[in-house]
């Protein structure tokens, strides 16, 4: 059970590792030549939005369920991620990035909640450990890949495409594999 969940989580983290915040900042710098101060402001806004969205995710999950919240917010957020490097101007790229951040973190609290809910209480510690290590290892490999792409100007956008694409694959896997498995509090409601 824990392993079945860990595998898609590792894929998601691997994709996430392609576009760690430091690399997005670096991307903005080489693509648009802006300095760290402006990039800092962009991320300030992005993370505030992400924080608010994480709170709203709780309400959404109450209404449509945890898995639905994870999948239905994550897919559009990663379509937006793929669009970021396609934006011709800085304001457009920033807008898309902010939009992306305003829904991209909604799967985080719901994912943790789901993992805890579908394993038995005495498995929780193990489940949390195994999934977080699966995520750490997944995320560890990919920055070097991103670095290789960033080194070639023509492939600058590739980490974004790859990350967005893989994250959508993760959503599909998750939806197909776990849609039927409801956490106890949702099964109870039905």
């Amino acid at each position, binding site marked *: 059970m824990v392993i079945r969940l860990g595998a898609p989580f590792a894929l998601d983290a691997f994709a996430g*590792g392609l576009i760690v915040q*430091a*690399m997005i900042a670096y991307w903005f710098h080489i693509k648009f030549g802006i300095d760290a101060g402006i*990039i800092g402001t962009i*991320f300030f806004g992005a993370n505030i939005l992400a924080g608010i969205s994480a709170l709203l995710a709780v309400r959404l999950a109450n209404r449509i369920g945890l898995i639905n919240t994870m999948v239905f917010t994550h897919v559009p957020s990663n379509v937006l991620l793929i669009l970021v490097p396609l934006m011709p101007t800085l304001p457009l790229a920033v807008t898309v990035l902010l939009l992306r951040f305003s829904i991209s973190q909604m799967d985080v609290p719901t994912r943790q909640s789901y993992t805890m809910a579908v394993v038995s209480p005495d498995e929780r*510690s193990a489940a949390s450990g195994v999934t977080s*290590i699966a995520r750490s290892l997944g995320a560890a490999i990919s920055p070097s890949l991103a670095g290789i792409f960033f080194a070639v100007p023509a492939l600058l956008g590739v980490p974004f495409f790859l990350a967005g694409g893989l994250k959508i694959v993760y959503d599909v896997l998750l939806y197909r594999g776990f849609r039927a498995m409801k956490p106890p509090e949702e099964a109870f409601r039905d």
Partner: protein
Amino acid sequence: MRAPRDNGFLKGDNMVPMNRNLLILFSTRIIRLFCYGFLSVVLALYLAQVGLPEQQIGLLFTLTLVGDAGISLRLTTSARSRGTLKRRRPPKPNPTDACWASIARATWSSDWVRHSPWTPSRVD
């Protein structure tokens, strides 16, 4: 079953009132993420400015995260073997590791990079 508690934003059965532990937990998370955010925006830019090629910046992140995964693994296994009661203790190694990382980074950027023959002149 208890009636759902209304905490403004969060509604649910499992919301507990604010207590000391929760406050400490929140504070440590805030400090940790503050430091993370402090560094994450400028780290890659800094490394590039110091003269590291992109492949090596990526590799450095990979190695950092491998270390991170190693620490998580160590903490989780020790937390499990020591049982629930002592679970709060394992985070101890973390500050030490962070110190080592800082020392390594400081010496590396001041000596290795600055005096190395491959370093481009813009480092100064």
